[in-house]
């Protein structure tokens, strides 16, 4: 083996060949990794629509809190006002139950009051409120992609 080349230093051509070679290899590796991750990010979701109709306003008596199973939300009617509260615990995604004092998560015991604020337990945030409007055919229309403040109502 000839060891003498190691002492000669690197020629200009050798430096560029080496640098460009490594840059190309690193770029190819990074591009492949990014491409593979992007491939795994779904572009279309086959999940239930976040926008749904919850029937006629008359279906919900005054002062009622109705749990909609499929949508995992509570529809709250007080007088002429409608609001919609998420039933998904902000802690680890379990479905909360309505109890006398508010809402209770069965998984880790978080307790929320009627406004969805955390009273106790590990939940980091209050339950989310969703936008409620009235559709053209006079149905309660809930949009789970629109988060609103708890003081926002649909007034009939």
């Amino acid at each position, binding site marked *: 083996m000839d060891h003498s080349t190691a002492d000669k230093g690197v020629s200009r051509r050798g430096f560029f060949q080496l640098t460009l070679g490594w840059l190309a290899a690193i770029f190819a590796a990074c591009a492949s990794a990014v491409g593979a991750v992007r491939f795994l990010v779904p572009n279309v979701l*086959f999940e239930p629509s976040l926008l749904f109709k919850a029937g006629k306003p008359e279906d919900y008596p005054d002062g009622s809190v109705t749990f909609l199973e499929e949508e995992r939300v509570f529809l709250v009617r007080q007088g002429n006002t409608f609001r919609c509260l998420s039933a998904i615990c902000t802690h*680890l995604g*379990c479905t909360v139950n309505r109890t006398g004092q508010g809402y209770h998560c069965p*998984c880790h015991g978080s307790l929320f009051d009627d406004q969805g604020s955390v009273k106790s337990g590990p939940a980091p945030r209050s339950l989310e409120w969703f936008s409620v409007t009235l559709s053209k055919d006079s149905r309660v229309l809930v949009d789970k992609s629109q988060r609103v403040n708890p003081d926002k109502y649909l007034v009939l």
Partner: protein
Amino acid sequence: MNAPLPKQIWKWFERTRVGRSIFRVGLPQSNLERAQAMVSSFLLHIQPAKVNRYSLRASYSLGLGLISLYLFLILIGTGVLLMFYYVPSTDHAYNVMKDLQFVVSAGLLMRNMHRWAAHLMVIFVLLHMCRVFYTGAYKRPREFNWVLGVGLFLLTLGLSFTGYLLPWDQLAFWAITVGTNIAAYAPYIGSNLKYLLLGGNVVGQEALIRFYALHVIVLPAVAGLMIAVHLWRVRKDGGLSRPDEPGDIVQQVALSQLPTSKTYGLMELARGTTPQVGRNPEDEVFAWPHLLFRELLLFLLVVAAVLFLAIFWNAPLEEPANAIHPPNPAKAPWYFLGLQELVSYSAFWGGVVVPGVLVMALVLLPYIDRKRKGVGRWFARERAVANTIFTVCLVILVVLTIIGSLFRGPNWSWQEPWKKAPAATEGH
């Protein structure tokens, strides 16, 4: 001449042209031939031809690493069989479980073996890690093999966790819901990680097929490769750790120091920490039969134990997954219940910071604790501080896991397991 008939047939076959082409060394008759067989056979050469007597002592290694390997092999065998029936679809997965239970010949047994071997593997990989810690076996030159071992422990958890979803029952569905939401608390990447893992926002068809692909090919392939490197490093780092080890035996020869007028054999350049170097020959015995016999015996014991569990206890299967009704309480798999207990106090601290710090500490351990004292002995007095810290962490983990598994009833409230649980409140 009065050898039993199978042996006579074997000996005849060995001498044929075909037999000689398959077996490079015939059935060995002497220690020399056995040693030759050990180094020239693909399946045997991962092991040394001669092995130190100390390494054979069951009271030293307890065979925990081997048991973990055997459980992995059982999981591959039963898992491949289960794949012939399993369909990763939310419409079919649960029905396949019922078929395996009631229709497929030995289907129940295969599923039970797979489930119990998976649980046992988590336990035995952890025990193996404890053994290596308490005997100081992670020290130079075995630092990197310890790091590989930490990786294999995490892979074991990942394999178990991804397999947990596949039956698509209530247990599976909610354990994965809770588990992936814990992952979502990771800083910066958490919510994207959850989205990528589930292939969406909810545990559904996309999540099932992703977990399936991870469970049957990605993670087993990575784990298999890492196990191979792990075993290879055990050989290259000088076999099992022993108290009388000289440490770094031969330094690698710098190429520039060699005269250029001479040609070299490979053995002159290789690093010399093979088990043979610097050892008294009387400390060593031939691996065939002393090591092989013990390995085969242990394999039989492991298979027997898994079969025993699988015959007498069925793997749990709850009602089909139902996204509307979480069970009360909803629990992660048992090996994550310590984590879930921590998460019930604070999701960020319990779910991200504590496990993150623990894993980092495990990875960095051999590079922080560098004193070569007390290697190769259980609970060496020189290592009292390290052993105490490790034991405290271990006890906390075990206590948290026991609390999460047995002492948490409906609404995650305190519930002594020997008292009857009150009826869960189900008021919407």
